């Protein structure tokens, strides 16, 4: 009678990572403890259907198996034994991987049918089920934890687990101008429980970094211990993970956005739940340049601003990092998009990204133009701050919503509630971190951002790149109002 063995498990890794190992018909000697040596006969490739692998097992047995099916779309590999020193007859096995979409894990199903000599059924079933399949599940888990893929091996080898790693970092010793950003040497501590250590390749620069450097939000970047490292977001690869971290493995490409500053460095340890995985199509610089800005645009348009067809939207600094994303995305949602910029060159870029009505102004005067163009703005996204406060109130439509995102010209003076009464207007002062506090919400917003970049709704803007040591020049450039689009530091 034909014997059947089925074993299955959940591997805490994305299907691509598991499949990368499983699809290599010649990989077992790298991860499965029972296999001593594996080679493909006749010099054929290990993904050639029909190829034969020859195993020497650690217990001295030898098995030759032929690849019958390999499907990269179905994540299926089927193979049979053609010759073996163990009495498995007519053995055909199938490995199937399926994604667990809820949690980005992998369901791994391994089954086979075979015949045995009389009386050996149970012994051989146990050998296959426990000795090969269940042991294989555990061995592959260990292999992945150790960074067992080509992409991860380099970083894993460079980083013995549990020890600090030397790093470059940019520190602020005293609040002030860009010159206060000083490159220095430091250490990235090993990841504790729930943490992940990341080799950063690109770091996003945001206005909040400038505010921190100036000392406008001292609670976020206290210098009590001598110095602070600014920076809210970066992209790179996982070096190692702490206890209890699921779904992330050494070598995974990731980006993060965290409310605790400290991203201006080459290696950083952050909570794993702040990290999002990067699709292959999204480059490190794009992710670092756009994660904070893109998630900001997402909650502004979808949640806070409730932008829909016909909404009259006014975007200040429309050629800036957030501005360009807002213009393009709001246009796609059917809004009437107006924007202010400080130069003709920026006006051109804003138009290219979907801003229909561009107002060029260097002295923060735009309310008349907005009233003329659209009869007022239903939603204003304002990064200008105090110098534009009266113009913003004048530019609002009835029941308009003024969202104060930043204050490039200086902190807003208090607003008299009666100033809002005249138009039944509302005023918001949101922080992106409150809109991404839930890991699932964060992941959904990030996914919408990557999708919008992939389908062309958002054009990846031209990114200005600086080395990490040149952070001061990058800040000076951002504050000069000369830059167009986002800036990143390369670690």
């Amino acid at each position: 009678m034909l014997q059947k063995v089925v074993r299955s498990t959940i591997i805490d890794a994305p299907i691509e990572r598991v499949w990368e190992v499983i699809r290599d018909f010649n990989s077992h000697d790298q991860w499965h403890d029972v296999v001593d040596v594996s080679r493909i006969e006749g010099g054929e490739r290990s993904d050639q259907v029909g190829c034969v692998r020859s195993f020497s097992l650690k217990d001295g047995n030898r098995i030759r198996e032929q690849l019958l099916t390999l499907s990269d779309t179905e994540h299926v590999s089927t193979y049979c034994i053609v010759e073996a020193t163990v009495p498995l007859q007519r053995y055909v096995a199938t490995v199937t991987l399926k994604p667990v979409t809820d949690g980005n894990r992998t369901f791994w199903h391994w089954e086979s049918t075979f015949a045995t000599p009389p009386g050996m059924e149970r012994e051989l079933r146990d050998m296959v089920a426990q000795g090969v399949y269940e042991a294989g599940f555990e061995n592959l888990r260990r292999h992945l934890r150790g960074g067992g893929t080509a992409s991860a091996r380099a970083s894993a080898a460079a980083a013995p687990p549990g020890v600090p790693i030397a790093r470059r970092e940019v520190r602020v010793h005293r609040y002030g101008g860009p010159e206060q950003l000083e490159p220095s040497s430091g250490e990235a501590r090993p990841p504790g429980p729930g943490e992940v250590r990341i080799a950063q390749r690109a770091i996003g620069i945001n206005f909040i970094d400038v505010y921190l450097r100036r000392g406008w939000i001292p609670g976020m970047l206290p210098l009590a211990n001598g110095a602070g490292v600014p920076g809210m977001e970066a992209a790179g690869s996982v070096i190692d993970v702490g206890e209890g971290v699921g779904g992330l493995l050494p070598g995974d490409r990731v980006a993060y956005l965290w409310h605790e500053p400290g991203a201006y460095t080459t290696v950083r340890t952050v909570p794993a739940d702040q990290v999002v995985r990067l699709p292959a199509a999204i480059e490190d610089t794009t992710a670092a340049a756009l994660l904070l800005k893109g998630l900001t645009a997402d909650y502004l348009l979808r949640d806070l601003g409730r932008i829909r067809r016909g909404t009259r939207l006014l975007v200040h600094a429309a050629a800036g990092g957030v501005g360009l994303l807002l213009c393009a995305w709001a246009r796609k949602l059917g809004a009437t998009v107006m924007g202010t910029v400080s130069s003709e060159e920026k006006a051109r870029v804003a138009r290219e990204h979907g801003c229909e009505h561009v107002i060029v102004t260097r002295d923060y005067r735009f309310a008349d133009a907005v009233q003329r163009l659209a009869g007022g703005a239903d939603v204003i996204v304002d990064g200008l701050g105090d110098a534009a406060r009266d113009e913003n109130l004048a530019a609002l439509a009835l029941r308009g919503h003024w969202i104060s995102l930043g204050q490039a010209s200086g902190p807003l003076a208090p607003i008299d509630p009666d100033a809002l009464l005249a138009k039944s207007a509302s005023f918001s002062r949101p922080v992106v971190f409150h809109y991404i506090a839930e890991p699932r919400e964060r992941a959904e917003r990030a996914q919408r951002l990557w999708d919008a970049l992939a389908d062309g709704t958002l054009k990846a803007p031209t990114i200005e790149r600086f080395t990490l040591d040149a952070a001061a020049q990058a800040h000076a450039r951002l504050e000069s109002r000369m830059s167009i689009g986002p800036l990143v530091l390369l670690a």
Partner: protein
Amino acid sequence: MVRVYTSTVIDASPDTVWARIRDFNGLPTWHPGIADSRIENSEPSDKVGCIRHFHTRDGGTIREKLLALSDYEYSCTYSILESPMGVDNYIATLKLTPVTDGMRTFAEWTAEFDCDEGREAALTQSIGQGVFQGGFDALKRHFGRR
């Protein structure tokens, strides 16, 4: 043709999960998005070919036909006959597979359909995240409590 695929792991044996979801007329007992359900023509709810007629909590009326039911494979396949969703040729399968390593269940919910151009992403989101993940979340909550 648009394909939606949602999967999850539930902390209960497939027999237990299947007992909760097998009844083609039982959506309101486990899926938070469904208000009520009946089987047309008083047919038994495990008769292949029967039609369930139900309302979503937001008031939509949906009629679906049972195309396949397997207690052996733990799977159920059905098509939409009538719905406000704007989908054509909609066929979905809900299937459970045991995870032998622990008393767990791998659950998959797949749909294939046609729709107007430009609505693919919105429908993929509302079906994959709203209907399917919403149902899985309810099952995970239910079996997580025990």
